[in-house]
Every structure is written in C-alpha cells, then in structure tokens.
C-alpha cells in the first residue's frame, strides 16, 4: 500500500479578478497539470525541476496548505481532505524554507511546540512528549544548543532545529522544501545523511524539493522531475536523471561524468571557462 498517492492532480494560482458585466471570472496560472504518482512507505523521494514548475506548490498540496483544483491526494489510503488538522499533523510534518521567528523562543521551546496538539488540559507537555523531543534533538545533534535562541544559530544549525521540530511530530512522512539551499558543502551532506538515516532507521518517507540534482541523485530512491511545459518524469532516480533529460528540462548544456554507478551533471554556461573545449555529450565524442 502506498503512503502517498497522487492522481490527476492539477493546480493553478489565481491571476487576478476580472469583472465582466454582472459576473466575476477568475483566470488562473496553471502550475501543475494532471500529475499522478505513488510513493511507497520508507522511500526517499526527490522533487526537482526548474523554477516555477510547481515544486513548492506540490509540497504545499501534500500538507494541505493548498487545496487542489482537481484530482486527489491520498495519505495512507485516505483522502487528504478527510483528515482533521490534528490527524494530518500526526501523519505529515513539513520543514519549510527557513525563516527567523519574531520572538526569541529557545530551540527546545520551539521543538516542543510540535507537541502542542498533545498537551494536557493545563496546556503543558507530558513526560512522553519530553522524551520524544529529547530524542529529536539527539537525532539532529541539536541538544547542545537547546537553550539558545534560533537567531543566535548558524544556517546549518537552524535547519537542523527545524528538522528536529518536524521529527518531534513523530510522523511517517517528512516533507522538506530545499533543506540545503543556504548551506555549505559539509552541511549539505550532513542534512542528507540525517534524512537518509531517518528513512533507514525509522522507516520514514522523505519527500524533499531540491535544486541540487547531483546531491539528490546520491540519496534518492525515486525522483519526480517537473518540466516547465507541464510534463513530468517519475521513476527511479538513475532512470530519470539522464543527461538528455536534464538538458531538455533545464534548458542548459551540461557536462556529465560518472563515479561508480552514480552519474553527475555540471551545467555549462556560454561564457564559462573551457565551455567550448568540453563537448556536452561524452558519448558522441567517443564516436568521432
């Protein structure tokens, strides 16, 4: 049984209101068109594609921050709209693109907030809640700055705190929106290692939106590649990430190389040094 089942999903953002005589019509900018895919439990799914193809929109649909125009989303075989807010939060946790909150909550206070629906009558957490939170802090290696405020942390540390909060929700599904976008190389792999560990050890389903296809390809089991024309590819990471596919979808020339089983892609701009020396397709060069 699949954990997430998306069928014939379409979504568009309102472009504005137009008033014809006597009636109000709304035009929509379509971002997702007739999208269908299924995610099995304990899978690492990466959603990639150019800007504006609806990656974040899809994530927002999967956690019901947005409502589809048509089509359906099922979480654990039940329609997503059949869940109460609380019940959905027990199934799906989200890590959005990072931000700094306005009040100076400490890290542990923030992670504890993930337990808000389970607070007792007096509005306080139980011992079990504390244990779950401590475990989340330990898993993300954030326990050492538990009493510091978020603003005093570096980007990588903050991202781990947001992941800790999502983990404290104890969900089977974890959605992440560009979890590594502001991080240096070491912290990028640090976050992906952490997510992979959660998948393997806890059996969580990870859904991550990213621009870094090379990093994603190393960790993903399945990939959803969204194209600007509304097309999409869904399948095993190594099948979806081919040079031809990447060049077509992103509209950029790439250099491709292989390390073991893993293919890597480096984008080549017109004015990049040596861009003319490197043939975009190593296979065709060999044939000459």
């Amino acid at each position, binding site marked *: 049984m699949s954990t997430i089942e998306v069928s014939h999903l379409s979504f568009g953002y309102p472009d504005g209101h137009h008033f014809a005589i006597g009636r109000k019509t709304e035009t929509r900018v379509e971002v997702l068109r007739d999208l269908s895919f299924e995610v099995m439990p304990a899978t690492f799914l990466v959603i990639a594609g150019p800007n504006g193809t609806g990656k974040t929109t899809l994530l927002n649909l999967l956690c019901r921050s947005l409502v589809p125009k048509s089509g359906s989303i099922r979480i654990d075989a039940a329609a997503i709209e059949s869940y109460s807010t609380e019940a959905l939060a027990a199934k799906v946790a989200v890590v959005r693109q990072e931000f*700094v*909150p306005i009040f100076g909550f400490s890290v542990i206070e923030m992670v504890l907030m993930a337990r808000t629906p389970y607070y007792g009558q007096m509005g306080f957490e139980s011992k079990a809640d504390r244990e779950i939170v401590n475990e989340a802090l330990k898993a993300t290696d954030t326990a050492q700055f538990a009493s510091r405020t978020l603003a005093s942390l570096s980007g990588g540390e903050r991202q781990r705190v947001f992941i800790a909060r999502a983990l404290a929700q104890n969900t089977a599904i974890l959605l992440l929106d560009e979890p590594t976008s502001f991080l240096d190389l070491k912290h990028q792999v640090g976050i992906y290692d952490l997510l992979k560990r959660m998948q393997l050890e806890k059996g969580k389903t990870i859904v991550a939106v990213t621009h870094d296809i090379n990093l994603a390809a190393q960790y993903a089991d399945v990939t959803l590649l969204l194209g600007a024309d509304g097309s999409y590819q869904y399948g095993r990471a190594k099948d979806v990430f081919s040079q031809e596919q990447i060049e077509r979808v992103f509209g950029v020339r790439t250099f491709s190389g292989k390390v073991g089983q893993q293919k890597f892609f480096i984008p080549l701009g017109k004015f990049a040094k040596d861009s003319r020396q490197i043939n975009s397709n190593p296979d065709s060069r060999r044939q000459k």
Partner: protein
Amino acid sequence: MKELLTARKLGVRVTSALVVLAVVMFVCSLMGTESISLKAVLAQVGGQEAINPDYEIFVQVRLPRIILACIVGAALACSGVVFQALLRNPLADPYILGISSGAGLGTIIAVISGFSWTLWGRSPIAVFAFAGALGTVWLVWCIGRVTGKSHVTGLLLAGVVVNAFFSAVIMFLTSIAKSQQMQTTIFWLMGNMTEEDFLVLWLGAGCVAAGIFALFYISPQLNAISFGEDDARSMGVNTARTRTIAFAVAALITAVAVSLSGLVGFVGLVVPHAVRLVFGPDHRQLLPLSGIVGAIFLVAADTLARIVVAPAQLPVGVVTAIVGGPFFLVLLVKHTHKVGWLSK
C-alpha cells in the same frame, strides 16, 4: 540545559506576581492628597460609628479607582500580547486595528449629541466608545478577510487606513465642536481613571477576567501561531479557531478597557515586551504575567497621576508614557541579548 516552564513554576510565579499586585494596591490606596489612616478605616469595618471620613474616602474614592486601574491595565497588557502574536509584529498594540479611533469617534459623537441618558450606570460616552471600538474592529476584520486567507498584512493595512480615516473624521468633528465639548473629548482621548460605581467595576472585572482565562486556555496555540499560520497548522494547531477566539476576546477586553478609561496608551505595547524581555516569550507565562504586571503598572501610574500635581490631577496616559518610556529603554538595553528579533 535551560529549565523548561512547568505548571508548578508558572503557578509560583503567578502567585508571587499577585502578591506584589496586592501590596502595590494596598500601598497606593493609602497615598493621595488626603492622608488617611488605616486604623480609622478598619475601625469602621468592625463597628457602626458615625460618619468616618477616612473610611468614606477609602471605599468611595480610592478603592474604585484602584480596582479600575487594575482592570484596564490587565486588559490592555493581555490584548497587547495577543495582537503581537497574531499579527506577528512586535510593534502591534491593542489599538492597532482601529479600536482607538473607533472608540474616539464614538465618544465625540456622544459628546456632541449631548445625550443625558445612562445605560446600567454608564454614560453615553462610555456606551458609544464601547460600540465604536467593537464596530471598528469588526469592520477591519471584514476588510482583512476580503484581502486574503492568511490576512495579516491585509488586516494591518485595513487597520491603518481605518485609523487614519476615523482620525480625520474625529478632527473634523472636533473642529466644529464647542470648546467645552472639545475639552471633554480631548480629556477622554488622553486616558483617565475616574471613580466608578461598584456595579460597573464588577461587570468590567468579570468580563476582563473571563477574557484572560479564555486567552490563557489558547496560549499554547498562540506560541505556535507566532511562527505563522501555515507552520502552526502543519503542527496540528487549529489556527482558524484559535485566531477567531483570540481576536474576538482581545478586541472585547480592549473595548471594555477603553469604555472605562479612555485611551490609555503605552501599557499594551510596553508591558508585554517588558515581561517578554525578563521572562521569555512563552505565551502560557507571558499572558498571565503581562496581565498582572499591566495592572501593577497602571495602579502605580494612576497613583502618580493623582499625587504629582495635587490637588490637580494628570491624565494617566501622560504618566504611563513618561514613566514607561525610559523604564522600557533600560530593560531593553539590559536584556537585548535574550530576544531574537533584536539580536539578529
């Protein structure tokens, strides 16, 4: 690791704050133009002597005014906490969504019309101020709804526009009013504590206390909502319900406060920040402590207003701003490192 807030710790802190409030109320009730002796007051409580001026002053003049300051201070501080959390804006105060201008407009209309009826012992000014305050918040809320689902920015803009528009109407009405009427209006706009009937006080106290309990009940959800509604919802918080309760209750207790005392400024902005700087941002603690500290602050400020230029009296709004401003700056400088939005 930092000690987390527990129900027990919260209970101890709230109780100690209440004790401080009781002491402040007691001390302030003995201060004033007429010095009264506690012994004389207590003598009256026991036996049935003839007219006792000390007792009369204490019960008829001092006590009602101090209770009034408590109610207004607690209401404004708590509603400041709520608006700052809901609007995710440290600059928010109870008046930000048009309550002040709506109440002001109601007042000046009542003054100009020269009504002379009373409703449950309340003057037309108070009734109109109350209605104006609630009506305006409702209007702003509706405008905010039209602008979008997560309507924080829409609400703020609607509040600013409505405030500006009503202020203009107030100025227009003031300019055509007679000088006596103008004086009454301006006096009211500055915020004042006047002696009230006990019936009015108990009604107001009941409303405000019930409101603060309701807000305390949703305070864990307010913590989550201060991160944004999408975020709170994905953590399992019913944001629509929380937002509606918080808004309605905060607007109601502010309207009660405003109809009792006029526009006392500064309490609703500064007290929540001061408490947050010292005790941290957790709303489960911030809300009750702000209420009590707001009451202490306004009781003390009103006592100052009574005695500084005695036998004349200052509007309490003047005192809250003059005393509160520097006091807040000292806190700010001492505790900046604690707050995220400043040390960023």
